């Protein structure tokens, strides 16, 4: 824990992250952002020629789609909903009075049609399903969004609002599992090219409760999720900086994503935790970007 706090403090002291008073909610400096931008360009050099269709959604998504996604079944503890004041003038007076005396003013807030996006690809599936059957060669998408997960922590690698870059592939089982393997190989190569030591391991999502334990076992038994791990705040427990997920036909069935021949599509996604990758670079090469190894600088900035 001390190690984690001290890395976070060093990041604050260096001005790379900016303290907001809330654990896991930080501002980023220009320097920090330039590392993220450079790494995203590196992702493009690997994936750009694949012809993915780029889409960018804001960090909030349609609540109805979120509800249908089943996120609350698996990760209720991580979700963030957007609530607003929807009352009249009298309610407003009461609200101000509540705030003035330090009572809970939020209890009258009402749910809006928006929830915070938990993963960059959530808004994608229903969007694609609306278009009708997928083209014969399947489909590939390039996404990036700030994502929210309610897990306050002083580990700078566990932020509540962070960016996820994703490629999502839809097609046959063979097509999407080949895609996942391709990116596992590319991921290792990319990280090596910027001087990061990595391991890939089978992984699971943080499913909630005892029922979640079964989901965890199922996910691991079937090798549905792999993570690319890099030491950031601990070498014993390295941090997942990329994940490689095979959803089988679960999203295809849920959203009505069909192949050209009408069969249910399989899907897979590859996610980059952009802040985590930047933090891994700062942790490995130091907080002064100018002092990073020349080969790493050349790979990132040319």
């Amino acid at each position: 824990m001390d190690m984690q706090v001290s890395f976070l403090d060093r990041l604050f002291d260096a001005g790379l992250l900016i303290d907001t008073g809330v654990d896991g909610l930080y501002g980023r400096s220009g320097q920090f952002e330039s590392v993220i931008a450079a790494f995203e360009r590196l992702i493009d050099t690997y994936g750009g020629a694949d012809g993915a269709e780029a889409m960018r959604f804001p960090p909030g998504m349609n609540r109805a789609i979120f509800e249908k996604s089943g996120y609350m079944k698996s990760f209720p503890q991580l979700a963030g909903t957007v609530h607003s004041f929807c009352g009249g003038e009298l309610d407003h007076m009461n609200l101000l009075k509540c705030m003035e005396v330090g009572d809970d003013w939020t209890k009258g807030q009402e749910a809006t049609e928006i929830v915070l996006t938990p993963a960059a690809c959530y808004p994608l599936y229903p969007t694609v399903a609306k278009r009708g059957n997928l083209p014969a060669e399947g489909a590939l998408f390039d996404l990036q969004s700030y994502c929210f997960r309610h897990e306050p922590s002083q580990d700078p690698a566990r932020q509540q609002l962070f960016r996820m870059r994703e490629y999502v592939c839809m097609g046959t089982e063979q097509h999407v599992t080949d895609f996942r393997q391709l990116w596992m190989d590319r991921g290792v190569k990319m990280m090596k090219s910027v001087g990061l030591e990595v391991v890939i391991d089978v992984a699971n999502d943080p499913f909630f409760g005892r029922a979640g334990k079964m989901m965890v076992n199922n996910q691991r038994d079937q090798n549905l999720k792999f993570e690319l791990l890099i030491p950031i705040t601990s070498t014993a427990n390295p941090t997942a900086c990329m994940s490689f997920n095979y959803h089988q036909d679960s999203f295809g069935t849920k959203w009505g994503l069909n192949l050209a021949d009408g069969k249910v599509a399989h899907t897979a996604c590859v996610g980059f935790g952009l802040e985590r990758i930047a933090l891994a670079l700062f942790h490995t090469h130091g907080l002064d970007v100018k002092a990073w190894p020349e080969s790493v600088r050349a790979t990132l900035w040319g």
Partner: protein
Amino acid sequence: MNETIRELLGKVGGLPGPVAELADDADLYAVGLSSFASVQLMLGLEEAFDIEFPDNLLNRKSFASIAAIEQTLTHILKSKEAA
């Protein structure tokens, strides 16, 4: 026990076909048991038999067929008696 399992499977399994027509050794995942439905089935079985599945039995194999579920339950009930 077989009957209780089938009853629960009908209630929470979300299977497209009737449970009565399933063989004891039919692969439940192949006939449409989702991960989430298997979790609901697990919780239903715990309530019906007043047991708790140990972590090492919370996996796909334990719920792969009606026969597998019977075997898992028998094992848990026996360990419960022993304890």
